[in-house]
């Protein structure tokens, strides 16, 4: 796909038009981003006209920006004035349009990318005091594609920091190549525990939480509520089974009891159609009939086959949690605590939509690079990596406390939000779940259990 892009038009166009001329976060930038998406998706015939128009708009906007907001370029103490260092951040993404059971859950076209763009904008606001300029270079591949050519291309273009929103398999296919080339990867998408365990890497940092962190965050709340008896229903695809495993582990860990389990096999449901809904109203009660007495029904359906249909349709009236009902996540679009309003407003202004978990993971990854570059006043990947690996490194991400990395597998510690579709219900770790180092390590696989040997 990366190679394919190059055939259609030079990369320099998207880089220049989006990242260099338009100020991040401005209306012009949003427009330019949309133009680039149009360019990517548009046919060759309309390409030149669009490209010319985009250039015109962006060039005009950059002029007006320059007039409107010329910052005072006083260097920070210790920085040399006048020199601008560019720090190129790549964003490598597996993307294909996805179906969802509810149209509200269809992932936005720029999910994740929009968070990275806001982070780059934030970094540039800081960077202008230090002579640092950050640029974002987005490349998309298909979810099952070979990602190596696109990776090579990004590195060739000077991106030594890559935000990856890829499958675990794709990520592993570039992890060792990246190590040999001195490239840092920040995983913003994959929740697979194996990437932090048996398949962990010294050059791969994870800002996305793991399935075990998500499941533990949920389980702690259910235990705190004294809702201890659970029924687990899970989908028939691999990710569903992995999340079901994480929920089983959480039950054992925190004293929940899974009194029954049942698999919902994907036989190709008629998503969102009228007849489908009629069928669902009859099928889900039957599917959930006959379970032993339980407090909560847990759903593991990352594949969007049946989960959304479970709440309000169960045989007996019980709350639903997991991938439907009460959902654990890295961020919630309605979180306003801990200064959250500020990032929510900034994000909404820049992207025209609410901020989702993947946007937050990507924003945090972008800010980690920015924070390291600011504090070291360097653009050298080795210097930045050393700084991020330091025990004292932390980043603020509107979650009420500083976030640090687990040094044994480079997973970012973070609170887990529990929310329904409207609001944040709670955040974990819950009160009373204690840990000798940090309460955040009550979420997910802890150091004594890890199978990670960093290499």
């Amino acid at each position, binding site marked *: 796909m990366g190679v394919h892009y190059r055939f259609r038009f030079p990369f320099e166009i998207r880089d220049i038009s989006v990242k260099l001329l338009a100020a991040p976060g401005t209306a012009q930038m949003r427009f330019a981003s949309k133009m680039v998406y149009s360019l990517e998706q548009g046919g060759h015939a309309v390409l030149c006209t669009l490209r010319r128009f985009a250039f015109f708009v962006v060039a005009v906007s950059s002029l007006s920006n320059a007039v409107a907001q*010329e910052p005072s370029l*006083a260097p920070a103490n210790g920085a040399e004035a006048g020199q601008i260092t560019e720090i190129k951040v790549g964003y490598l993404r597996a993307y294909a349009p996805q179906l969802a059971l509810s149209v509200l859950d269809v992932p936005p076209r720029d999910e994740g990318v929009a968070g990275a763009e806001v982070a780059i904008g934030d970094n540039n*606001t800081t960077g202008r005091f230090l002579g640092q300029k950050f640029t974002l270079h987005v490349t998309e591949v298909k979810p099952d594609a070979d990602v190596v050519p696109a990776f090579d291309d990004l590195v060739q273009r000077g991106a030594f920091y890559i935000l990856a929103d890829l499958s675990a398999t794709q990520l592993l296919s570039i992890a060792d190549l990246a190590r040999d080339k001195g490239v840092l990867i920040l995983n913003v998408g994959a929740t697979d525990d194996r990437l932090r365990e048996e398949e962990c890497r010294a050059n791969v940092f994870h800002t996305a939480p793991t399935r075990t962190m998500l499941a533990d965050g949920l389980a702690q709340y259910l235990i705190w509520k004294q809702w201890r008896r659970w029924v687990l229903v899970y989908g028939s695809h691999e990710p569903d089974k992995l999340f079901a495993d994480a929920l089983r582990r959480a039950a054992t860990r925190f004293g929940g009891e899974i009194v029954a389990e049942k698999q919902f096999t994907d036989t190709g449901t008629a998503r969102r159609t009228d007849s489908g809904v009629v069928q669902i109203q009859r099928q889900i009660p039957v599917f959930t009939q006959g379970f032993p007495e339980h407090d909560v029904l847990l759903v593991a359906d990352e594949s969007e086959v049946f989960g959304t249909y479970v709440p309000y349709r169960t045989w007996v009236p019980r709350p639903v949690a997991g991938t439907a009902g009460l959902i654990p996540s890295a961020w919630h679009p309605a979180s306003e605590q801990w*200064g959250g309003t*500020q990032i929510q407003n*900034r994000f909404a202004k820049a992207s025209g939509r609410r901020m989702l978990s993947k946007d937050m993971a990507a924003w945090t990854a972008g800010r980690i690079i920015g924070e390291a570059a600011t504090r070291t006043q360097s653009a050298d990947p080795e210097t930045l990596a050393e700084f991020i690996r330091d025990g004292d490194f932390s980043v*603020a991400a509107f979650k009420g406390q500083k976030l640090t990395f687990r040094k044994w597998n480079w997973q970012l510690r973070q609170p887990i939000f529990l929310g329904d579709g409207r609001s944040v219900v709670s955040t974990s770790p819950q009160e009373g779940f204690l840990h000798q180092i*940090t*309460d955040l390590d009550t979420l997910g696989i802890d150091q004594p259990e890890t199978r990670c040997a960093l290499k």
Partner: protein
Amino acid sequence: MLRRLTVLIAGPALAASMSVPACAYMVYVSNERDNTVSVVDSTTMEVVHTINVGQRPRGITISHDGKLIYLCASDDDTIQIIDTASYQIVGTLPSGPDPELFVLSPDGKTLYVANEDDNLVTVIDLESRSVRTEIPVGVEPEGMGISPDGKALVNTSETTNMAHFIDTGTHEITSNVLVDTRPRFAEFKSDNSEVWVSAEIGGTVSVIDSASHEIKHKITFEIPGLRAESIQPVGVRITADGMKAYVALGPANRVAVVNAKTYEVEKYVLVGQRVWQLAFTPDQKMVISTNGVSNDITFIDVAKDEAMQSVTVGALPWGVVVHPN
């Protein structure tokens, strides 16, 4: 006189508070969540009035003559002017979007406002009620401190993690000092020797030399039984004699008392939940904290460094200012 009498009649319950205040001050508290300002009498320690104001009131200050309150109505993108005699809103100032916190110049003529959403400091001329200029700063500007001579302004940007020193004559940034994560507040010593900058997530207060702009000391806090993550310094106030400082520690629910000469923390005063901002009474006999989560404010006795009384105000109290006379 009548009020004084009431206190006497109230008897033993208020005996402790009676020992300190010589005169009554009006205390104004902005309540972020219910769009009000609570007016509290410092002698009776009771809410005497509630003013309905604009949306999401946060930063609050008062003119030097005590006649006008300035209030950041953040979600209305404006600063409201409240008459302290009538409690009526008598005007607004063009603050720019999302004003959060501001500082009044020592001559009372200029208001410097942090516009959190737009990475700007807006300079407002109070006489003409117009914007004099805007100064681009770092991401999420919040803390605003001004030197006693009015020549240097310090703004802190929460995501950039810098204290920006601004020359108020030229409106140019003269220096950017990297501090710890999420700097929230800047406070000059009255002798202009130092600026103290709190870092909420970093958990420290940086003491910056006003002349060299170098960090000369970093104050850290340790409270037995509390995790480091829950100690989040926000509001800072330093006594006029430069001897003692008070630092609000957020979810640690305490105000730290710091020796401002040695930088040693001498005491932690337990107040309400999530304590953010502080204000002295003009006689500096009391310091008042806003406790956001417990919806109250706490009066602290400066001589004894003990909490005297907490008073329930509105929802999510944010800022506090005391009438100068």
